[in-house]
């Protein structure tokens, strides 16, 4: 592997600064539905970042992150609706609940080998809509109806529209998560996570607590995906059980794989993909979206195991080597 030299790193940094500047200026440039879509892309990118931590860095498979997303979304919605919470504590509590869920579900599951974890999380994803509809929690979750959230999150002193405020909020959380995870994977903790992925036995012999590291990976991943769910509630002002079905989990997995498992930028690319493919595909047929996802998943596992980001990076390295 070639490490990027300092000049290309500087170019990369410039690009990131430019991208951030563009995003910050975006509400002045675009409005309405397109801004909503970009907000959704960022929100999904956050959810995909969460799953990417498990799949790309942890080397484990979760088919149930759609369910974690659902928990985040519902906790925030119920918090704001039934308990009249301000959006900020609602979002924070949603994140913490998902973190706790990650620990509770991960603690028994992570001792399982790859397939077993996939099975357990697959079942979780399938069961989640039923659980959300259940009679015993209907007073809060509204059963099949779901929950509408009618409070405006914009503080009085800010002269922003709801859409623009939520956009900046999501952007801020995504940036924090983005740089936070980037820093994490350069830290001791991050190296431990990668060591566990590469070789558990070797990692254990180097003094890494494998179980605890896996658990931390899973919990952190649930935190990010759960926060994304909470932000989703702020964006759409409405949650319903059937929008968090198995397909949601599969969608997140598609995004991880297409963007590039184990890459920092991958989730962004993947989120753009899953946000815009349905728009294009549904003009062809109701089934086309899934067919395209299936095709891309196969292309990724066959030819581009590191996704679009890994592929482009490889291309750049080869180009530079030729010069």
């Amino acid at each position, binding site marked *: 592997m070639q490490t990027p030299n300092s000049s290309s790193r500087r170019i990369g940094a410039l690009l990131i600064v430019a991208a951030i500047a563009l995003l910050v200026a975006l509400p002045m440039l675009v409005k309405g539905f397109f801004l909503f879509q970009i907000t959704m892309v960022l929100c999904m990118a956050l959810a995909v970042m969460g799953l990417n931590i498990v799949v790309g860095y942890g080397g484990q*498979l979760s*088919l149930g992150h759609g369910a974690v997303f659902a928990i985040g979304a519902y906790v925030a919605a119920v918090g704001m609706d039934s308990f009249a919470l301000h959006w900020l504590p609602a979002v924070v509590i949603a994140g913490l609940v998902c973190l706790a869920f990650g620990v509770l579900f991960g603690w028994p599951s992570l001792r399982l080998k790859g*397939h077993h974890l996939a099975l*357990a999380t*697959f*079942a979780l994803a399938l*069961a989640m809509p039923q659980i959300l509809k259940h009679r015993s929690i209907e007073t809060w979750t509204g059963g099949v109806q779901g929950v509408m959230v009618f409070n405006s999150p914009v503080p009085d002193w800010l002269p922003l529209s709801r859409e623009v405020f939520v956009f900046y909020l999501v952007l801020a959380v995504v940036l924090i998560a983005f740089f936070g995870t980037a820093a994490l994977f350069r830290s001791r903790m991050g190296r431990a996570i990668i060591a566990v992925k590469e070789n558990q036995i070797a990692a254990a012999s180097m003094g890494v607590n494998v179980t605890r590291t896996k658990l931390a990976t899973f919990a952190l991943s649930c935190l990010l995906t759960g926060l994304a769910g909470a932000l989703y509630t702020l964006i759409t002002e409405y949650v319903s059980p059937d929008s968090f079905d198995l397909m949601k989990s599969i969608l997140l997995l598609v995004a991880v794989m297409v963007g590039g498992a184990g890459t920092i930028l991958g989730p962004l690319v993947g989120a753009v993909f899953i946000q815009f493919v349905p728009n294009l595909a549904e003009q062809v047929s109701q089934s*086309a979206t*899934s067919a395209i996802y299936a095709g891309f998943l196969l292309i990724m596992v066959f030819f581009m195991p590191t996704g679009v980001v890994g592929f482009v990076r490889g291309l750049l390295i080869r180009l530079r080597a030729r010069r």
Partner: protein
Amino acid sequence: MQQVIQLTLSGIAIGSIYACLAVALVLIYKTTHHVNFAQGEMATFSAYVALFAVGLGLPLWLAAVVAVLFAFVSGMVIERVVIRRFHSASATTFVVACIALFIGINSLSGWIFGHDLKAFPSIFGAGTSSVVPFLSAHEVGSIVTVVVIAGLLYLFLSHTSLGLAMRATADNPVSARLSGVPVDWLLTLGWGIAAAVGAVAALLVAPIVFLDPNMMIGVLIYAFAAALLGGLDSPWGAIVGGILIGVIENLAGAYVVGNDMKLSLALLIIVAVLMLLPQGLLGRKTATRV
């Protein structure tokens, strides 16, 4: 009391169907140590093929045979074209490939045959059975079918040299190869057989729940639970597990959790089995001395 008996009997019937799909999963797990998440969707597609054949004017039983043969061949083709390259891949990569097949075949079913619910006749007729009280002819037929499949499987695995080669492939593929067993071909054959057994499950499910592209997703999760409960590498365990799960589902659905929580019940069973009984009831614990 009568209701308990009735629920138990119909639990055995529905459990037989879970057992079928679980056997398919186990056949593949045993030879490749991978779980085929696309098993249910492959089966659904085969059920559509049966309905299509009926539409062409074939009698139902012949359409069913056509569907099972179709499943057998397409299972082998899928193994050759897609799965082959992932046999030695990590579990993660393999499952991602399976998920691709899952949504691919699911959307193909919808694309070709439509998303609406379709009524699907039972090969065993619509009436009640004259043999067993409380049960319909279809339910009795389901139980008989799984018994026949178990018998055929037993004959194949224990009394044919191809079956022996299959067991050798599952046990130690390198040694099997060194002994002249065409392991690659047997893996292909295994996918064909699994797909055929899975198609039988779909033909048994469709008359109960109507045929639609997502028909097998719920059944798949029960089959997972059944296979895990029985022990992922034991076909006999899968059958025992399937029937147990069917009975548990019926009784718990009626008396404990309610019928609207059946998928959550499956989740609960899966997590409980993984925690408390990771080997399953009949899973293999080989004592190896060196």
